[in-house]
């Protein structure tokens, strides 16, 4: 390559340096604010404690609704929030389902519609789930109900986070 092709005029040189320096300074000013605003989206999810929900002896083959309370930390605001689980046992196995509809987040009820016995029913857009949480085909939800992580200590059932299946 010859010298000629690389000729940069004084004007060009000034434009490049000034835009470069100016851009660097603007970035230094704007970057902290952008990162500050993005923070909630970049924060790792916190751990959840396991909370005692019921004694294992009280569980039946029929899903039962259990209410329990977790301590929720929401930025500078800590509060007790109610949680719901639909829990039943099948032989030795215990299943604890989240009541949050996998369509758009409304709340499902066991046998919430008398036309659909033995199913979970969502009133918002008529979503349905089998007893084990699998979504009924041709209703709006596209995946099974989430399940709670669980632990059994001294005959008591403890529930933690919900996980997708």
């Amino acid at each position, binding site marked *: 390559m010859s010298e000629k092709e690389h000729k940069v005029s004084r004007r060009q040189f000034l434009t490049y340096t000034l835009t470069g320096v100016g851009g660097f300074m603007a970035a230094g*000013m704007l970057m*902290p604010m952008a990162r500050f605003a993005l923070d909630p989206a970049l924060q790792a999810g916190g751990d959840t404690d396991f909370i005692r929900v019921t004694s294992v002896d009280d569980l039946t083959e029929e899903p039962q609704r259990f209410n329990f309370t977790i301590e929720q930390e929401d*930025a*500078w605001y800590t509060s007790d929030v109610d949680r719901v689980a639909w829990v039943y046992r099948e032989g030795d196995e215990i299943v604890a389902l989240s009541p949050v509809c996998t369509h758009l987040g409304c709340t499902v009820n066991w046998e919430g519609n008398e036309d659909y016995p033995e199913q979970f029913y969502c009133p918002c857009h008529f979503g349905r789930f089998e007893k084990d949480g699998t979504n009924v085909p041709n209703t709006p939800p596209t995946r099974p109900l989430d399940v709670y992580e669980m632990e059994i200590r001294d005959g008591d059932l403890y529930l933690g986070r919900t996980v997708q299946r």
Partner: protein
Amino acid sequence: MLQKIYDWVDERLDITPMWRDIADHEVPEHVNPAHHFSAFVYCFGGLTFFVTVIQILSGMFLAMYYVPDIVNAYESVYYLQNEVTFGVIVRGMHHWGASLVIVMMFLHTLRVFFTGSYKKPRELNWVVGVLIFFVMLGLGFTGYLLPWDMKAYFATVVGLEIAEAVPVVGTFAKTLLAGGEIIGAQTLTRFYAIHVFFLPGALLGLLGAHFYMIRKQGISGPL
């Protein structure tokens, strides 16, 4: 690439004359620090505006986390400063910038004073400048209460007692500013609204007038 986008828009909307009219003027020699170094005093107005832009930007971002409520205000400021990434920096920009803008404004005023630029035909712009000065003081006063800590609270107690000392209308002015008899919940929400909506609105209007007059009258001549 950028040049192509610019040309495409310019071909349709003819934007070149618009920005040239606003931005493309020769800097007179007596105002250009490259000719006379002492001319840097002419930069103070622009620097005041620069810090104001930083105040507005950082303030908008602070408002994403801040709540103007006496129970949560302090906690939210604590959270945004200590838990949110770069919170110290963004709050620091707003906190130190609030003082810096006053310093810059003062230096700019000194330059205008000692170059005699307030004289005919620029008297009105001096008046607008003084109004901007009061709006800035108002922003500093109302913003200072927002963190709702001891310093904030007692600074406002003192400030409102000063307002109360005004003859005849003092008590009325104090109650109006505090939003009642106590300096509390209603004072905080009121100061917040004044700080983030009323005064910035007034400020932008005044700055518009300020810059329009400069554009119209040009910079004042050499001494």
